[in-house]
């Protein structure tokens, strides 16, 4: 009976650690997602500023290099732009579609939403500025996300494990 209790306590402690790990993993994936966004913005900025590639084609081309949700975003937006839609509406709709699966916070998404409002209506020089500013703002979010991932990751795993051990001690 005691052996069973010990085994159950270990399982509870491990489960707590796993829950903490899941939260920590979400932080890590947030950083990776921001990295993917930065890569996409970099490619789009080059295609728009230097080769004046129309946005639909630039997104389609960039989607072949992008990863994960960002790949879905660029391919999905390129498809939407083939229809009779406005860029800002399509951009926002595509971000909304992916939001449930995204690890980005509202503060991470804000610069992206703003970018969608600006694109397509100005010249190449202005676009270079839009992409640069968005990359800078996302860069700030990325540094914050990386800090949280390191500190928060350790904290959530420890918290999970401690909570699990505490629960196990109570049960014992």
């Amino acid at each position: 009976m005691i052996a069973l209790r010990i085994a159950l306590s270990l399982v509870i402690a491990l489960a707590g650690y796993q829950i903490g790990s899941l939260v920590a993993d979400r932080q890590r994936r947030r950083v990776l997602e921001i990295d993917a966004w930065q890569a996409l913005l970099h490619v789009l900025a080059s295609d728009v500023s230097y080769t004046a590639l129309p946005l639909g084609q630039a997104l389609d081309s960039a989607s072949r290099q992008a990863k994960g949700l960002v790949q879905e975003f660029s391919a999905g937006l390129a498809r939407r732009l083939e229809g009779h839609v406005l860029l800002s509406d399509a951009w926002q709709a595509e971000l909304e579609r992916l939001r449930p699966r995204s690890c980005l916070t509202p503060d991470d998404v804000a610069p992206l939403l703003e970018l969608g409002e600006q694109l397509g209506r100005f010249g190449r020089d202005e676009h270079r500025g839009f992409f640069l500013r968005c990359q800078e703002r996302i860069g700030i979010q990325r540094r914050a996300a990386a800090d949280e991932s390191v500190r928060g990751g350790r904290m959530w795993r420890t918290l999970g494990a401690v909570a699990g051990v505490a629960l196990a001690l109570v049960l014992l």
Partner: protein
Amino acid sequence: MPAAARAEQGTETPWAQIRPYVAERLALALDRLEPSLWQDAREVRLRAGREIRLVGAGGRDRVLGPTVTAQDLEHCLEHLTGHSRYAWEEQLAQGFLTIPGGHRVGIAGSWSAPGNGSRAVRHVGGLNYRIARAVTGPAASIARRISLGEGPLPTILVGPPGCGKTTLLRDIVRAASDGLYGWRGHQVSLVDERSEIAASHLGIPGHDVGARTDVLDGMPKTVGMRMALRALGPELLATDELGGEDDAEAVLDCAYAGVTVLATAHAASLEELHHRPSIARLMGEGVFRREVLLGGQPRPGTVLRVTDESGRVLEALGR
């Protein structure tokens, strides 16, 4: 088949071709128009703060609701430029865009000069969708008078604006290229500086200019004629609106290379044309062997006179 020709045959209406480039709110209003009105339509005019105007043949216009807003016009321009105004900066600087079907959209509004000498549209105040119509056949009436043997002679089409010079030139090009009216098929280079002859969109002609025709779209005439001469090996070269000395030099280069040149020029009469030094020089060199004077009455494309290189009237028509 070029889109303008499909529209002419009724397989695709001009409105179906234009609709993707109109803001949804305005498109919904235009959807309600009777299809028969589009058969006669020449222009759709959108001006900020005004209602939509559908202009028909003879300039008669029909006013339609709703009132066009500045935002509607911005949305139209977004559709016209494929959400990428930056990709069309050069074309926008000319004040118009050509869309599939050969329809041309003129832009009014405020423009800025970014500093590199070009102009960029900042605020759109109005858009004029000019509906292109592929008119085939007008060359048939003068083919015999401008040819000797199996192809057209070097010819200049003359007339005031709006008299159908470009339409006739396009049809002569098509006929010479496809081998119609007793001509054999010729390799044709068409230098279309202002995209008015072939109405190309993304390099593809919107009008039928013949199976053996290469189009240099948006290319300055003087550069395009010499480029075609070097690279495309034309038997016949066509271009629109000859003007200054540079144009005349380029035409002479082509003529000396044995290429038949077809061109148009603005002038109210042949006498007025001959007073222009550049054209007078070409005539003196015997570059053009036929001059065709066109008039706008009773309808555009009316041939008033055809003369040969010595000024002899071959036939006075249309009167």
